[in-house]
């Protein structure tokens, strides 16, 4: 068993892991240890189960087989598998985006009265962007926006997504179009990069990667690119934009982050997962007089809703709800013995959680038809009865307060303050209405550039260590850091989202932050909100009449775990941003595919992947990328 200090960089986590180890509670790190050493074939991407002539493996070192039964080589196996990872990741983000799109339509048609349109200004702005008349009845405009979004999911023509056409910067759009033409002219074969419809690109990959289909690594990867773009400039973007319309565009607000946001005296409800549709409602009903009164009658001071992971990010940004932690905190929060309920929707919810909850009085409540858990209480969520369902959930939590065992309560009183909520709209407001001040700061060399850090925790990496250290290293080098997801929560917990944290940054970032009154690490939202970074990049590129691949920017997913991260990484690369990854993705079994990803993609798309295990080295490489691009732009 490893020492808690080696497992997490977060002191609250260390405190809680020690407690779990003392009391014999099984955590994710124990399960990882039980899996080690992990399979070499899987690590390299050299196994295939796409048909039952297999399973097949390829021997990377010795005299074993170099082909699957069908004849597929290591290059095919690796590319096919990566492609499927992208499809799964894009599907997760986009299916998430579909829900608010349908909801917007229902609200517009008056079929759902549980929700309203909170941000009319954003609705009209999105409409204008899509070429829909922004004037007129709110419900009419909303319906038109929802129709465009839904048609982007399922249309059958081969034109690019309307959301992509409306949001991608001009030069980038041209680049993708020209790339398709160039590849056709050079090879005589059809290669597609521009996504036709969100669902179709996922289906295309499932078709293409089945036995006896596409075996050409480059062709497979380009379809991966197309699918990832349908996520970034499609499904994820739709999720962000429509959630803003329905629940409000985030603006800066102060919140608290880490396990110390749990309250001993209150009924604690942890909402975990990814979507805001249910959690928004829980936050709302938890303030209702009747339920608060009920909690008081139970002897609690009130009801304390806290977030976890991206559901946490969604309500953190829009409602200022405190966040208990990121992915690796999801078990730890249960071990505090303070949670009356953990309510989950979709994605990144460990199946280990219900079993752990059973060691305490905690009710583990699943709500999605798509994510059910043995050992959970399932309370089915219906959008049209959202308030009722949310009330039933909160009531169950309140009633459970009496079952809390004080003997089992053990939690760290650790929480940091953070200034969060930097949507593109909020950033533009801070900048005085245009990206120009940011562009000037970069052009004049006040800051060297901007880095985006995203992604998960992974028990293979000391929790938050890479996320936080990389951020610090970049800030020291006068590179402003923006980001989303579990990184954002890690940075908040580490205190990097307080405006005072600018003192840790290089002189340029410090000056910029002081002038604008912003922290040096900017929380842009949940993982679907990576689309906000794309929109920001697009705005800067269009402002300068250049392409994203010209801008001094770089990205990183330094503790990534999920297939969603592969999709995110790929759409950034495909949009012209070099992306750092750690751990290495399961592609190294094919030196050819590895070369494609790390070198050849650059000449096709202006972005590439690189792998680096050390935060300082990763930061140095990102800085090099940024400096090289500055040089090309003629900036010192």
């Amino acid at each position, binding site marked *: 068993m490893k020492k808690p200090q080696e497992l997490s960089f977060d002191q609250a986590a260390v405190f809680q892991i020690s407690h779990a180890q003392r009391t014999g509670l099984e955590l994710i790190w124990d399960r990882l240890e039980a899996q080690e050493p992990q*399979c*070499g074939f899987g690590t*390299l991407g050299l196994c295939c189960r796409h048909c039952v002539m297999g399973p097949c*493996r390829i*021997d*990377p*070192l*010795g005299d*074993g087989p170099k082909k699957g039964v069908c004849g597929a080589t290591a290059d095919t196996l690796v590319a096919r598998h990566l492609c499927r990872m992208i499809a799964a990741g894009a599907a997760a983000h986009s299916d998430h985006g579909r829900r608010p799109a349908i909801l917007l339509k229902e609200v517009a048609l008056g079929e759902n009265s549980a929700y309203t349109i909170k941000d009319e200004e954003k609705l009209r702005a999105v409409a204008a962007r899509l070429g829909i008349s922004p004037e007129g009845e709110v419900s009419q405009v909303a319906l038109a926006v929802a129709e465009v979004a839904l048609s982007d999911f399922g249309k059958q023509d081969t034109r690019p997504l309307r959301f992509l056409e409306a949001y991608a910067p001009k030069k980038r759009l041209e680049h993708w179009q020209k790339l398709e033409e160039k590849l056709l002219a050079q090879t005589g074969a059809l290669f597609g990069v521009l996504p036709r419809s969100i669902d179709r690109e996922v289906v295309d990959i499932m078709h293409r990667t089945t036995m006896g289909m596409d075996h050409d690594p480059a062709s497979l990867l380009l379809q991966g690119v197309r699918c990832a773009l349908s996520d970034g400039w499609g499904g994820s973007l739709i999720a962000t934009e429509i959630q803003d319309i329905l629940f409000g565009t985030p603006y800066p607000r102060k919140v608290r982050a880490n396990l110390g946001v749990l309250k001993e005296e209150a009924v604690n409800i942890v909402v975990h997962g990814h979507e805001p549709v249910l959690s928004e409602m829980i936050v709302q009903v938890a303030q209702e007089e009747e339920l608060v009164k009920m909690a008081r009658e139970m002897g609690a001071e009130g009801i304390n809703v806290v977030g976890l992971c991206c559901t946490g990010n969604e309500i953190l940004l829009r409602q200022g709800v405190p966040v208990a932690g990121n992915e690796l905190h999801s078990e730890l929060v249960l071990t505090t013995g303070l949670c009356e309920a953990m309510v989950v929707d979709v994605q990144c919810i460990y199946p280990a959680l219900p079993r752990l909850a059973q060691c305490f009085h905690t009710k583990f409540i699943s709500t999605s038809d798509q994510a059910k858990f043995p050992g959970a209480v399932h309370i089915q969520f219906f959008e049209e009865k959202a308030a009722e369902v949310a009330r039933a959930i909160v009531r169950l939590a309140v009633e459970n307060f009496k079952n809390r065992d004080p003997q089992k309560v053990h939690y760290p009183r650790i929480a940091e303050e953070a200034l969060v909520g930097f949507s593109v709209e909020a950033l533009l407001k801070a900048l005085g209405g245009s990206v120009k001040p940011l562009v000037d700061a970069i052009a004049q060399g006040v800051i060297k550039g901007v880095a985006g850090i995203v992604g998960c925790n992974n028990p293979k990496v000391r929790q938050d260590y890479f996320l936080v250290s990389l951020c610090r290293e970049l800030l020291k080098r006068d590179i402003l850091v923006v980001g989303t997801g579990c990184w954002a929560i890690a940075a908040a917990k580490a205190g990097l989202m307080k405006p005072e944290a600018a003192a840790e940054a290089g002189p340029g970032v410090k000056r910029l932050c002081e002038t604008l009154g912003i922290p040096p690490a900017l929380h842009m939202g949940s993982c679907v909100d990576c689309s906000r970074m794309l929109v920001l990049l697009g705005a800067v590129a269009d402002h300068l009449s250049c392409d994203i691949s010209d801008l001094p920017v770089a990205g990183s997913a330094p503790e990534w775990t999920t297939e969603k991260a592969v999709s995110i990484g790929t759409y950034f690369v495909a949009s012209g941003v070099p992306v750092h990854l750690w751990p290495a993705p399961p592609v*190294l079994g094919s030196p050819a595919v590895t070369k494609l990803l790390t070198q050849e993609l650059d000449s096709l798309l202006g972005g590439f992947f690189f792998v680096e295990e050390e935060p300082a080295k990763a930061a140095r490489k990102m800085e090099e990328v940024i400096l090289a691009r500055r040089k090309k732009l003629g900036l010192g």
Partner: protein
Amino acid sequence: MKVLAFDAVRCMGCHSCELACAAAHLDGLSLMEAVLAGKRAPARLWVHPGRPFAVVITCRHCLRAPCMEACAPQALKRDPQTGAVVVEESLCIGCRDCVLACPFGAIRMEAGKAVKCDLCGGDPACVRHCPTGALRFVSPEEEGLRKQRRTIKTFLAKAGRKP
């Protein structure tokens, strides 16, 4: 001295042991680095999954090793710590006599030198990587005692007595 023990019933034919064996002999490179560098590293044990049972071929580190007896330049030595029969590469002249002498076919040639199991210095990688426990590293004496105990239990149970 411990030996490798193989339980054919537990083997699911995943070849993890072979890859682990190759990866443990990469002169300090990691598996990923070696693959990217295009390095060749054959395994020193081979699983032949078959029906009704799998067979693993590897060196037994025989107490009276025919390969050692056959090796004229005395390139094959016994490691005093582990009891393993190991190749001293600088002495190997590539005569292949050991390959012919081995009754199990556990020695192969690679780049003109004999290559065989060295028990990884006492902590065999194949055993560590076997996900089902089909490969174990055991002392034959202890294994014998364990089997004696098991036999006694069976007899007692048959006689209706508690052991």
